[in-house]
């Protein structure tokens, strides 16, 4: 057949018209749009039965009750438990993002061993066996005290298992991660004779005076504190925040008094001065339930704490100091709290004592609406372990961190002093270090020095679920399950005024080849044999937990927590059975010495003050949702933004958003500026929690770490007392 132009055209046009009239194009158009509605790369979460599991959050010491929503075997959401006494349904942003920790692809999937500087996966058997071998060798060499263990907390069965292990092994070096509780517990012990944690009956306070505490930025159990602060408002109470920058807490307070950083203790003494001078103390309480007021008077009534002098030091007006003291003393239920920011740094003991004295003067100690000594739980009653000679000898040696020594008699744990101790001598004092919490290589100040010190340890074992900074530097990583995959008892909630035990329970089966820390301890003990094996009769941590809790297990399992509703504050246990403003142990602490920021003010004209944000974590890796929620005033692209006052910026010739180098005696960081009227001129405010060297791609490498720029500052008590460092900013 011959195709001429006409028939060709007819074919083309006819074909086109025919196709257009057929259902084909219309069907295709429809199909393509259906395809766009069901793109295979857009996930469709599978449906299934929804169930809820009650558990306890352990992402901070807050101890909130959580309600975990599961769809089949998947965890899809974490909510607050509305019937939980701590959080009553509320949840903090970190708690709400907890699922992302469970499903993070950056978790450690099985035990890792570092070979030639790189991690290789090993079996649990091999890892435990090799570590046990090292432990045995060290013990046989007669140096059991060269083992140390850093744990998140010193309470609960896991901590007790670790402590028991160390004891029977022969090492006194159980170290708890530092927090403001260190100073509070010591203050309670010194003044009240009570070995207890400090609870704050915030729900009944009428005047809340916060000396730098980030009440709304992670201090205590956030939902508990938040709700209490809200209720304070409803009751027309007063809330005064003393802090150099307009933090979220300061923004919420009725009054923000931007004092010079590091002068909180001076101000507390200044308030005591006014109260004593004007006789505003709560007379019945002070007269009948306290002793040693003369000692306090001798100290506080000095000229150094007169309003004028305090005004000079703090940058506030003398009038303000006097008015504040009067208002505080006149309030129905006043309460002063301290512990800077989220309370992750203990701070100077004298400072905490000053605040505690202030509370005692107005009668707010061990009463409703006051500071309450909450006794440590006593449900763990295991038989005394049998110890061999090596262990007994080892236990006689001084602690590596110096806690409890002649120099630091009051401190119980001094993780902050560990780097110093490790750097001493030809061989480091610690040969084997276990880290099951706290991520010290990130969270301790002066990161570079800390890293150097830790690198001297021949065997560093991390028990983190994540490849955090400490795990990355470890020789072995023994991954622990997350809090959604294991059993755990959580005694007490940070700052909560009543004794409470919470239960963590596995919401899902462990996703990866992990092992709870308690089980690692038991298995190590079993491997080591002898007295160690004998000291651990339990086959697993879970069994240990059930047996330990005994009668309490069932109610705890059923309800998820046990609250001692009937709890009333206990009588003081000092020699005088009174609150003591002065005694033999307090004597060396009488003369108050504030800690200046390290660095030469001539070279470093500014002062760097780190601050905490609820959208950033301190030790743990911040989950992606929180990084997403982080304000662009804190993180912009990959740069951290530091707060400075516009006047300071003008003096430096720098504008908002400008790139700068932030230099301190300890290091330097690339930063961007954020100009705000909400900070004292001369200061540089920097969020803690960025500049992570490890973790997921949403967090790693973003911003800079404040801890890299800060120096360790040691209080006379041994506690870490740093609140800032001298710094300067240069145009980048």
């Amino acid at each position, binding site marked *: 057949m011959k195709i001429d132009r006409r028939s060709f055209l007819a074919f083309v046009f006819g074909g086109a018209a025919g196709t257009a009239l057929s259902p084909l194009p219309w069907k295709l158009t429809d199909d393509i749009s259906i395809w766009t509605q069901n793109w295979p790369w*857009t996930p469709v979460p599978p449906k299934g039965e929804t169930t809820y599991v009650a558990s306890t959050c352990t992402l901070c010491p807050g101890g909130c009750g959580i309600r975990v929503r599961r769809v089949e075997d998947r965890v899809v*959401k974490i*909510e607050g438990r509305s019937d939980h006494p701590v959080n009553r349904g*509320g949840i903090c942003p970190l708690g709400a993002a907890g699922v992302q920790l469970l499903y993070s692809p950056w978790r450690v999937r099985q035990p890792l061993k570092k070979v030639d500087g790189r991690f290789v996966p090993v079996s649990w058997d091999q890892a435990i066996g090799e570590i046990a071998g090292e432990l045995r060798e060290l013990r046989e060499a007669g140096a059991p005290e060269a083992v140390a263990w850093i744990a998140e907390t010193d309470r609960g069965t896991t901590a007790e298992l670790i402590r028991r292990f160390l004891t029977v092994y022969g090492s006194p070096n159980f170290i708890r991660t530092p927090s403001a509780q260190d100073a509070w517990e010591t203050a309670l012990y010194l003044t009240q004779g009570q070995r207890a944690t400090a609870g704050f009956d915030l729900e009944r306070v009428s005047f809340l005076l916060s000396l730098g505490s980030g009440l709304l930025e992670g201090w205590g159990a956030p939902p508990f504190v*938040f709700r209490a602060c809200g209720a304070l408002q409803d009751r027309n109470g007063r809330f005064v925040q003393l802090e150099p920058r307009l933090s979220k807490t300061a923004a919420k307070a009725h009054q923000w008094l931007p004092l010079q950083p590091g002068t909180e203790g001076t101000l507390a003494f200044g308030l005591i001065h006014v109260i004593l001078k004007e006789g505003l103390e709560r007379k019945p309480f002070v007269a009948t339930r306290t002793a040693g007021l003369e000692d306090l008077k001798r100290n506080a009534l000095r000229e150094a704490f007169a309003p004028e002098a305090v005004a000079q030091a703090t940058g506030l007006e003398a009038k303000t100091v006097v008015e504040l003291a009067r208002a505080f003393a006149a309030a129905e239920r006043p309460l002063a709290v301290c512990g800077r920011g989220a309370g992750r740094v203990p701070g100077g003991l004298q400072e905490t004592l000053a605040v505690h004295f202030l509370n005692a003067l107005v009668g707010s100690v061990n009463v409703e609406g006051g500071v309450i000594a909450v006794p440590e739980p006593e449900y763990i009653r295991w038989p005394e372990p049998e110890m061999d000679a090596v262990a007994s000898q080892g236990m006689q040696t001084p602690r590596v961190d110096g806690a409890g020594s002649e120099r630091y008699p009051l401190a119980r744990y001094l993780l902050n002093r560990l780097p110093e101790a490790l750097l001493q001598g030809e061989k480091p004092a610690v040969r084997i270090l276990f880290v099951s919490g706290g991520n010290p290589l990130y969270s301790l100040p002066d990161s570079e020095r800390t890293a150097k010190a830790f690198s001297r340890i021949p065997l560093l074992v991390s028990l983190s679920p994540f490849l955090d900074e400490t795990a990355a530097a470890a020789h072995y990583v023994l991954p622990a399950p997350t809090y959604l995959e294991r059993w755990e008892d959580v005694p007490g909630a940070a700052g909560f005024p009543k004794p409470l035990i919470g239960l963590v329970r596995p919401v899902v089966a462990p996703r990866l080849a992990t092992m709870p820390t308690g089980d690692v301890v038991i298995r190590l003990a079993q491997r080591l044999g002898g007295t160690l094996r004998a000291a651990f009769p339990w086959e697993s941590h879970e069994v240990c937990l059930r047996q330990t809790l005994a009668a309490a297990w069932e109610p705890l399992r059923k309800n998820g927590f046990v609250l001692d509703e009937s709890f009333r504050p206990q009588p003081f246990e000092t020699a005088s059975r009174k609150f003591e403003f002065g005694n033999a142990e307090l004597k060396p602490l009488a003369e108050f010495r504030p800690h200046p920021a390290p660095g030469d003010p001539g070279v470093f004209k500014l002062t760097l003050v780190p601050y905490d944000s609820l*959208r950033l974590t301190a030790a743990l890796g911040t989950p992606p*949702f929180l990084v997403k929620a982080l304000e662009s005033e804190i993180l912009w692209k990959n740069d951290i933004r530091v707060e400075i006052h516009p006047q300071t910026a003008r003096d430096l010739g720098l504008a908002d958003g400008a790139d700068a180098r932030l230099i301190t005696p300890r290091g330097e960081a690339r930063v961007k500026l954020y100009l705000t009227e909400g900070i004292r001129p001369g200061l540089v405010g920097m969020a803690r929690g960025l500049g992570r060297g490890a973790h997921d791609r949403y967090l790693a490498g973003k911003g800079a770490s404040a801890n890299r720029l800060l120096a360790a500052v040691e209080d006379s008590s041994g506690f870490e007392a740093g609140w800032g460092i001298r710094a300067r900013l240069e145009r980048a």
Partner: protein
Amino acid sequence: MDQPKNKRYGMVIDLDKCTGCGACMVACMAENNIPFRDDDTDKLLSVSWMHVYRLSNGKPFPHAEECFLPRPCQHCEGEHGHSPCVSVCPATATDYDMHTGIVSQIYTRCFGCRYCMAACPYHVRQFNWWDPVWPEGMERALNPDVSVRMRGVVEKCSFCYSRYQTALNRAYLEGRRELSEEEYQTACTQACPAGAIVFGDLNNPAHRVHQIVKPDLAHGGRPRNPKVFRLLERLGTHPKVYYLTRRDWVRRAGDNEIQKT
């Protein structure tokens, strides 16, 4: 059974209690399968149904004050349900539900023209500029009650409509047609550790939200409580999200109604 009366679901946020912690944002992200990206610092490119603004009184140190203002979708009623965004959508992908007062969004209907974004003065509508991607394994945490949105469509807060449906289904199974106040609460309300968010039916005098706001329902729900205000009251968008504060400067910073009358 009687046909249930129309609801006007709304919210009042106590700005004096809000601490700006961001729990509402995160709870919302978890509930509603909000995607996250390597860099989410540019909030104008980031999807977050709830956004917490930082308001300043504009005064110099040390008189500076700040306040945090969480902003979900305002679920504007406009005049007779003609909220600014609903009336402009060319494909009927968004709708004002007269039974609940909720402004919905049908992601599979939306073809991404973004007219609604231009129409909304509150910036509650956000575009999926990228394909949503979860790192391996983390898609296990996705909530099956809320569909994941594909690239190229607009999304916004739905007052956790899936939670409404779940609650309603349960009620129907139990032979009820009406939900109690606590049966249907949004994720942000439930999460707020400060108890700053109150959610409920503005039509129902028994609900706390009604009692706090005291809405004048004949006049677009204008609050009768003098401490309560709405964002951009004078535009006539008639939002159903109210803000409560005792601080004058916050009211002034939050809406231009007072300063310019």
